[in-house]
């Protein structure tokens, strides 16, 4: 069990400042996902918690204890790396056992724990194999077992699923969520994949250029984006953002837009559009639509809701509660209002 607190933390590599003055609290027992595009500083934060890339300024506290300059082996943590970092010359058993041996855990206790965690990750039949004989998914499981067997109070994971194929990734995602619920340990998970972040996190920490853009539950981040960056990072395709006057912009998610040959009542946004492409994605349809002013929008719709043909001329509409307004600096002002802005959106009122 552990809570991690960053206080005014900074990190520079040479003269390049990657992170400056960052404050963040990672809650005890929660699944926290640090998400952002590559180079945003998320892995740097994780390495600071691990103690393998110390902060250049500020403090990091774990359960109130300053661990900023504590060496990694003194911290009660375990980490799973993107490339798994399995020891290739050791057998699966030796890989899992290595950390325990170094910590001088007695033999019987080691054997008991290895058996227990090998079972949890389903690697019991492979304990005496060499990692080179195993598949990517199996190596991933070794890395997980190796981390779990130490019973750490914090689990760190650096894009652990990104080397797996799509199917396995989806399966492992569910397993990791289950695992976290079962262990009740603090998980800190780094990814660039917003779907992973949304599906696994209790709390998402969205980062860009070394700064935290938003902290919140997946629901909060999706429904109440703090700014345009946040609005456009989460969601596929990203939120459509259109200009209003005076630098003010408004956004609408592709899945909130309605399209039809007929004008529907009770909407706040009305525009005329021309369907450029129509993609059939299974349960959903995805369209690219050009508005009469030349701007393009992405629209996503369930099959049985709005199905329009390619090259059709349609009404593009959205209700007020799905419109998000942003000020000139990109900060979220509100959604579904204020009234004066909502009026400006209106577009064509026939």
């Amino acid at each position, binding site marked *: 069990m552990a809570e991690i607190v960053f206080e005014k933390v900074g990190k520079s590599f040479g003269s390049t400042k990657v992170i400056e003055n960052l404050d963040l609290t990672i809650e005890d027992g929660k699944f926290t996902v640090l998400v952002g595009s590559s180079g945003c500083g998320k892995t740097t934060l994780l390495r600071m918690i*691990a103690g393998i890339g110390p902060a250049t300024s500020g403090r990091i506290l774990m359960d109130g204890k300053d661990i900023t300059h504590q060496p990694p082996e003194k911290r009660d943590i375990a*980490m799973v790396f993107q490339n798994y970092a*399995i*020891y290739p*010359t050791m057998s699966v058993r030796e890989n899992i056992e290595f950390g325990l041996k170094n*910590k001088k855990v007695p033999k019987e206790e080691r054997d008991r724990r290895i058996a227990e965690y090998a079972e949890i990750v389903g690697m019991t039949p492979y304990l005496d194999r060499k990692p*080179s004989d195993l598949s990517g998914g199996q*190596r991933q499981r070794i890395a997980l077992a190796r981390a779990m067997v130490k019973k750490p109070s914090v689990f760190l994971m650096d894009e652990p699923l990104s080397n797996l194929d799509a199917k396995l990734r989806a399966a492992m995602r569910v397993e990791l969520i289950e695992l976290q619920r079962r262990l009740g340990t603090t998980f800190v998970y780094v990814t660039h994949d917003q779907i992973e972040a949304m599906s696994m996190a209790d709390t998402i920490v969205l980062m860009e250029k070394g700064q935290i853009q938003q902290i919140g539950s997946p629901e909060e981040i999706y429904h109440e984006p703090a700014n345009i960056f946040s609005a456009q990072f989460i969601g596929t395709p990203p939120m459509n953002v259109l200009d209003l006057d005076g630098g003010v912009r408004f956004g609408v998610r592709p899945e909130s837009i309605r399209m039809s040959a007929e004008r529907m009542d009770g909407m706040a946004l009305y525009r005329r559009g021309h369907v450029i492409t129509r993609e059939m994605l299974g349960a959903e349809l995805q369209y690219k639509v050009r508005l009469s002013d030349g701007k393009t929008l992405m629209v996503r719709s369930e099959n049985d809701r709005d199905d329009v043909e390619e090259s059709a001329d349609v009404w593009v509409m959205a209700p007020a509660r799905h419109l998000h307004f942003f000020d000139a600096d990109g900060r979220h002002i509100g959604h579904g209002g204020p009234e004066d802005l909502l009026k400006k959106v209106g577009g064509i009122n026939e």
Partner: protein
Amino acid sequence: MIKAIKNYFVQPGWGLQLLSDIIKILLMLAFIFPFYWMLVTAFKGYTESMAVPPTLFPKVWTLEGYRSTFNSGLNILNYAKNTVLITTAVIALQLVIMVPAAYAFAKREFPLKGLWFGIVLVAFMIPLQLTYIPVYLRMQDLNLVNTLWPQILPMGADAFGIFMLRQSFKQIPDEIIESAKLDSAGEIQIMTRIMLPMCKSAMVTIAMFSFIGTWNAYFWPLVMTRNESVRPLTMAVEKLRDVEMGIRWNSLMAANTLLVVPILIVFIFASKKIIEGFAYRGMK
């Protein structure tokens, strides 16, 4: 057997395959023949070894060659002991010096790292012959000439070995070392349990080069020593050429087998290890 031969001649393009196999066999014979000649000559009698035309296979097998080598008045065992001592010491010293150096160059940051590594590479480029006189003078200052030491100490670090090991260490992802640190491993454990096993092929290769180089060294011991009691086996073989009038080929070849067979044994053993080492593919 017959089936295998039949199969050989029905495979598509067997003509080319046959040609290529014949060339391979001829090449193999060309390489093996000198060794074969050495071995059989060592077991021939003196007269047979001098016979014209030479016999490809000894008519009479005899240990006369070996006997006369050991009875030549040279203390063969002492020469052999020196060779073993020198070779073992050189390899041990090289590992003790080169492994940490290569590790530091590959994985650690320290001031002027580039410059230091440059110096190592320069040492790699300087012809060995240029170093004879300065090293000799230094050994003389230290009063070590005419002992085993000048045959060991100057070989203690080999620039090529450091370079090769460094490359090998560099290929190990940093995450593996970080992971080991998170697994509470100290530097020594990281080195012995993780880094060295992963670099086994490079280590074996370097040790083998050193072994062959030191075992076969002739000129360096010749320059650095005057006294037979501290000279290696290579010098004894040379000595056999001028113990008596004319060369006793069987005796000389017997001495040569003594010199070469350990290398062959080590090579056969090591080549297996090297293949094992290379068979380990980098892991994602």
